[in-house]
Each structure stands twice: as structure tokens, then as C-alpha cells.
């Protein structure tokens, strides 16, 4: 085999347009620009994650030294600084019900938008979802307060918070479901319809398995956002001390614990706020890991589909 460098550069007798080594100023600039961007992009990424890392560090610093199992398992609901078990349970309770509602609304809405609705309706729905995502959570909370707490007369109870929170989460599920179904290559849809599947059969048998990893990511994203949400809950739920007994009980989530305690002059209450914040961080992190693992497993089956 000929050695690589022996033949380059000078090859006598070929036209300049055929020379493949390019040392022109423009090309050198472009290559330099590419390289600079290759460094700049990760650098800017680092700048972007510094505040996040700082927050994780600060919360851990404040919370970890006081961390014991009794924070979760302590039994006396009135001994505030050792008792996060009830708010932790309530958080899962609230988020579980809110996710169920958000998935029901968002998934059906997203699929209908991507597959069934006429173009104008679909675009109207997308605009609505985008507006809802852009709405500050305190405004959603206020609407929930006006609607469920006052107008429906439910009062500041568990179910009012759950429904308000689910309205906040729905557009995230909606958008990923819409996007996942819209980005399925057209020939796959045509192949399914061409083999005699009806639209609903296509959606259930072909579309959903393909869109599943993306939809799942959207659902978990909505959960992670919902778990961290405070504003819609503090205005629609009366903070309870006990686990909610029924849909019309008072209830208190971890975020509400933080809200109540982080500005307290008492050091013990501040510790409680940081413990709650730490628990939330762990939950959100765990959710992210779970969604990565599950969607990676499903994504593997789909390799090659989008080529």
C-alpha cells in the first residue's frame, strides 16, 4: 500500500480546480470559525449550567447535614422540623392525579390535533397550547381560584389544586404528543392507511408505538414541572397538616412547605424548607433518569425509521 503522504501535495499536470488541498483565506477562516464555535458552544453550555449546579450545591449544603430518615418517617404531624412524610405523600398524590388528568386531556388533544382536526382547528389548538405554556403559573393559579374555589364553590381544597395543576401540565403533554405524531414520516402513515387501517387503527397500532418514547418524555417533563410548581397550589389549596382524607380535604405539598418556611426567622423552619427542596431535587432527578432509561429502551426499536 502506498503511504498516505507520499502523493500529496504536488501532483504535476492537474488543473488548479482539481487540487483538493485548500489554503485560501476564506477556507482557513471558515475552518477557524468552525473550530472556535466548537469551543464556544460547550463553553456557553457550561455558563448556562453553572446556576443550576450552584443551586444543587447550595441546597445540598444546607440540607444534607440535617438529613435523617425521621424527616420522612417521623410520626408527629405537629413536630414540624422532623415531619415531611405527609407533604411527600401529598406531593405524589397531587402529581399522580394531575398527571392522569393532563395525560387524558393532552394526549387525546395532541393526537386529535396532529391526525384528525382540520388544519385551522389544529393551528388554533396549537396556538392555545403555546399561550398556556407561556402563561405565568400564578395566573393559572388565580384562574383556578376564581373558577374552582369560588365559582364552583369547591373551596380551597385538594381537588381544586389538583385540577388547576393539571391545567398547567396539560399543554406540555399536548405539545409533545402533537409533535411526536406530526413527525412520523408520511410514508409510514400512508403504508398503514394503504393496508386498510382506519385512522384510529393507524393511531393505536402504528402511530402510538412510534410516538411512545417522545410522548413519555413529554409526560415526565410535565410531571417534573408540575412537582416543582408552587403558585397554582398555594392559591387553591388550604395547607393541611394531615394526609388528605378525601377530595375536599385541605392538603400541603413539598413546594408549599418551602413556600411557608423559607423566609421564616426560625432556623428550624428554614432547615425544613431546605430539606423539602432537597427531596424535590432528588425526585425530579430520579424522574429524569427514569424517563431517559425507558425512552432509550423504546428508541432502540425505532432506529433507522427516520432515514
Amino acid at each position, binding site marked *: 500500500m502506498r503511504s*498516505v503522504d507520499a*502523493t500529496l501535495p504536488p501532483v504535476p499536470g492537474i488543473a488548479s*480546480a482539481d487540487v483538493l*488541498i485548500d489554503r485560501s483565506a476564506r*477556507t482557513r477562516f471558515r475552518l477557524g470559525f468552525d473550530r472556535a464555535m466548537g469551543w464556544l458552544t460547550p463553553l456557553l453550555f457550561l455558563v448556562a449550567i453553572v446556576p443550576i449546579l450552584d443551586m444543587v450545591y447550595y441546597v445540598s449544603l444546607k440540607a444534607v447535614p440535617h438529613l435523617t430518615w425521621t424527616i420522612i418517617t417521623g410520626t408527629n404531624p405537629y413536630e414540624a422540623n422532623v415531619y415531611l412524610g405527609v407533604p411527600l405523600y401529598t406531593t405524589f398524590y397531587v402529581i399522580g392525579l394531575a398527571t392522569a388528568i393532563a395525560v387524558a386531556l393532552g394526549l387525546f388533544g395532541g393526537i386529535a390535533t396532529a391526525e384528525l382536526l382540520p388544519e385551522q382547528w389544529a393551528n388554533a389548538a396549537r396556538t392555545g397550547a403555546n399561550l398556556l405554556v407561556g402563561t405565568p403559573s400564578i395566573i393559572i393559579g388565580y384562574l383556578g381560584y376564581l373558577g374552582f374555589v369560588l365559582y364552583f364553590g369547591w373551596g380551597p381544597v385538594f381537588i381544586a389544586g389538583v385540577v388547576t395543576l393539571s391545567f398547567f401540565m396539560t399543554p406540555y403533554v399536548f405539545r409533545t404528543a402533537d409533535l411526536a405524531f406530526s413527525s412520523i414520516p408520511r410514508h409510514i402513515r400512508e403504508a398503514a392507511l394503504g393496508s386498510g387501517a382506519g385512522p384510529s387503527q393507524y393511531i393505536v397500532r402504528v402511530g402510538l408505538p412510534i410516538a411512545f418514547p417522545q410522548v413519555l418524555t413529554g409526560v415526565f417533563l410535565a410531571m417534573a414541572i408540575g412537582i416543582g410548581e408552587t403558585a397554582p397550589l398555594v392559591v387553591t389549596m388550604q395547607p393541611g397538616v394531615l394526609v388528605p382524607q378525601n377530595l375536599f380535604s385541605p392538603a400541603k405539598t413539598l413546594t408549599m412547605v418551602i413556600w411557608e418556611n423559607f423566609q421564616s426567622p426560625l432556623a428550624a423552619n428554614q432547615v425544613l424548607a431546605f430539606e423539602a427542596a432537597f427531596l424535590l431535587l432528588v425526585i425530579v432527578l430520579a424522574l429524569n433518569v427514569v424517563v431517559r432509561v425507558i425512552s432509550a429502551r423504546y428508541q432502540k426499536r425505532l432506529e433507522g425509521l427516520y432515514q
Partner: protein
Amino acid sequence: MNAAAAPMGGPVMSVDHLTVTAKTKKVLLNDISLDFPPNSLTAVVGPSGCGKTTLVRSLNRMTELTPGLRVKGAVYYLGQNIYDRRVNPVLVRRRIGMVFQRPTVFPSSIYANASFGLRLVHEEEEKVDVAVRHALTRAGLWDEVKDDLDRPALSLSGGQQQRLCIARALAVEPRVLLMDEPSSALDPAATQRLEATMEHLKESMVLVLVTHNVGQAARVSDRVAFLHTGRLIEVGNTDEILERPKDPLTQQFITGRFL
């Protein structure tokens, strides 16, 4: 096979002990050596998965766009190894153009599609007009589209779109055009027109045509290279390979297709 020593009169391109390995350690191409003489059309044939597409993609460093592929050996273009570290892959792809299986026009006008490559090299306006017309003529599309070059390219038929893709590749005046099953998505009439375009183009440049259609290879090619499981089984003039194949594998493949 001595491209490096004598670029003038020698092959325009030559492949020298080329081995391509996938991330999974699977050998896609195994020690291929092959010459492409000037003004010729070489058809690369073989059963599915034999490495035809990998071979043409490695001729203009498109393999780099597939993560995990490792290329060993050399591909010479007029005596220059295109895998040399100092070679600019953009210049490689300008001299060695490529047309793909599915017609892939960009969602803009016919004119914008045909002039796409020229815009990348910042060619002057008047030159672009001339080059677009020249490229569309060579691709055999000019007469059909000359009245309305501002029409959306997506409004063309599949065969016209594929010839527009060829014109887009030709506009930057490459010496080599690689075609990866360009007629597999076209009907017989469009295929016939495409083949006429190829006949015309091979008088002035090197064409490499991947095809799974032995009939097409017989109609348009001067030389045939037969690949099987990543190995080059045999290469030679089309008449010889198709009528008197030396290797039983080639024999099987050809007769299987002709039956």
C-alpha cells in the same frame, strides 16, 4: 493501477485497498482496489447488503457523515488521496458530486435548486445564470423547465426532480458523478430519460452508477464491478462480465436477475 504516478491519461479515480468497518466491527467493504478511467460509466452491482452504497459513499467522504464508520486504505482523485488529513472534504465533494436514491430537491424554486452549489462558492450572478442553463441542459431538463424556472421544484414529477438533482450536482462542474440507484424510485419512461442523460454525460466525465438492475448496467455501463459481501468479486468491461463471467457468484447473480 498507478494513479499517483501518472494522473494524466491514467484513471481519474482509483480505490486502493479500501476497507470500511462499522461501529459493530462488521466489515462493510473488504480490501477493495478498483480504477475509474476517464469518460466512462462504471456500474457497481451486487445483491442487497453487499456494500455497493458504502463503496460510492466512500468515494467522496460521505462515509464521514455516518457516525462510527472507519475507513482504511486510500481513494485517489487525480493522484491525490482524498482521505489525506490536509484535504478539504468540501472541495472533494465539489469535484466528486453525488445523486441519491430518492430525488431530494429542496423546497424552493427550480432555479434556486440548480444554483444551490454555485451560491455556496459565491459565483457572480451572470455566471450563475449561464451555469444553471448549462447544467440543466446537460441533465436533459432544460427544454422542460426553461419557460418557468421560478416554479417550485416540488411541483416537478419524480423523474424531473431526479434530473434536477443531477443538474444541481453538475452545476459546480464536478469531474466525477456518483449515482446511488438513481432510478429506483422512477417509472420506466423516466428511467429511460435518465439513462439517456447518463449516456450523454459519460462522454465528458466519470460516472459511477450503483444499480441492482443488471439490465440497466448492460444498457448504460462501460465497465461492471460485481460486489458480494463486501468483496470485489470481479471487475471488467460490461460485455465480458455479463457474457463471460469468470466467477460462479457473478454467474449466479446475473442469471438470477435475467431469468
